[in-house]
């Protein structure tokens, strides 16, 4: 039982997809205009992530290795379609405000990343827990980002007005604000020497396909140093 909880903890804290692995930056920047949107995006991704991990793990011995990417995408896309239709039916407001980003969950690199890196090598139940942990970690990060942006940009959190609208800085709910807030949160994280893909504190797994340049450099250098150690 303990290893299942360990997977969940790992996803939320040790390998938080947004702040530590720096994965899934596009939805992170685009959908965090408010805390509510961020939670909506986080939870829908979590749902897809859990079941895609479980299904791909279950099918890992059936899918031939050469067509595993198309296979995984088919599974993920079906799940995203289900989530999309459910959201359209039950949470139309969030569905409207997230718009194109719900179908785009299909190409979210966290989902494919976990499928490739974890679900293909582990059993369905633990893969499910891994997806759950990653999903909660993603939701948590998005909510933090969304809350900060909503607070400064619109003066509210979860829609409750805290700062009068005359004193809000509108740019923070727009695209530039996303970059600024994310950069500041990452900077604080670096300052506190928390592990992250950008400050060398976290070993960059080989599969990482993020846009993070430093990560790519680390990746290149990693094997050389390992060889040295062995020698």
């Amino acid at each position, binding site marked *: 039982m303990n290893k299942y909880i360990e997977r969940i903890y790992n996803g939320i804290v040790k390998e938080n997809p947004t702040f530590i692995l720096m994965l899934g930056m596009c939805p992170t920047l685009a959908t965090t205009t408010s805390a509510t949107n961020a939670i909506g995006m986080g939870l829908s991704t979590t749902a897809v992530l859990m079941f895609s991990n479980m299904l791909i793990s279950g099918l890992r011995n059936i899918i031939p290795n050469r067509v595993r990417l198309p296979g995984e995408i088919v599974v993920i896309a079906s799940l995203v379609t289900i989530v999309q239709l459910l959201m359209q039916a039950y949470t139309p407001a969030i569905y409207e405000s997230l718009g194109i980003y719900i179908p785009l969950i299909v190409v979210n690199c966290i989902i494919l990343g976990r499928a490739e890196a974890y679900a293909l090598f582990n059993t369905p139940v633990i893969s499910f827990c891994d997806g759950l942990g990653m999903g909660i970690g993603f939701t948590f990060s998005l909510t933090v980002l969304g809350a900060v942006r909503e607070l400064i940009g619109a003066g509210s959190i979860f829609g409750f007005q805290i700062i009068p609208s005359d*004193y809000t*800085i*509108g*740019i*923070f709910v*727009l695209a*530039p604000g996303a970059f*600024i807030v994310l950069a500041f949160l990452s900077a604080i994280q670096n300052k506190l020497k928390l592990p992250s893909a950008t400050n060398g504190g976290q070993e960059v797994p080989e599969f990482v396909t993020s846009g993070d340049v430093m990560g790519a450099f680390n990746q290149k250098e990693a094997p050389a140093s390992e060889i040295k150690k062995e020698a």
Partner: protein
Amino acid sequence: MKKMLNLSSNPHIRDSVTTAEIMRDVVIAMIPTALYGIIQWGVNAALVVLLTVACAVLSEYAYEKFMKMQITIGDWSAAVTGLILALNCPPDIPVWIPCVGSVFAIIVIKMLYGGLGKNWMNPALGARCFLLISFAGKMTSFTPIGADAMSGATPLAYMKNGGDMANVNLMNLFLGRIPGTIGEVSKLCLLIGALYLIVKKVISPKIPCIYIGTVALFTLLFGGHGFDLYYLASEILGGGLIFGAFFMATDYVTSPITPNGQVVYAVILGIMTGLFRLFGGSAEGVSYAIILTNILVPVINLKTIPRAFGREGDK
């Protein structure tokens, strides 16, 4: 003898002029237009100017203190940033807005990139666009002067919306009897300041002249008014073109260093300004044109490296 055999890394040509002196000259050059704005609009304009400059200097000091860096507020560059930003704000704006802008200019645009000389974007203009996006209404509501046919709208906005050209008085445009930001309206004061900078050799007239010339040509070609010198002059004197061309496009840090690069830079600036003004959504486009062209400066520098003496052809 000892001095003659001085071994050092570049730059080898040395001059006694310091950053502080240059920046102080820029501040002096902006004093006429700032005074004009303050006299014209009174207490709030004065407060905006003073507090914005104070905020800029203080935030640079605070950041450097906090990061345990060398304190560089003595080089006047933070004061210049604050002053340019203040002069770019409407006179009746709530004072805290430009103050937020000046903290953003210094901390985010300048210091986070490593301080003076390392920022890729003009801090004052970056902050102005930050404010323009955040407080669109407050940043573009201008106080009219007297009973004017164009009261409330800047001449540029008036012309863009197809206003009657007969109501546009070139003399008012030149002397600054028009609505606008604190520092951009009086072309006379701006040109006096620009002349001071040119005489003191702080700026070269190259970038401003080519910039304004390109805007003129662009307006002539695509303005839709044919060869109408009156309209052309109104486009050049209206808005912040003169202010931007002489005081912001010439910023040392964010303009190219190669001679040809400066020409390319100025032409791109002119085309961008023309595009934004004539085909864009808002009447004025100088700020956006300058900060967008700032992004291209490293590329322009790279592509226009002059041929070294004694070398043939490329590379």
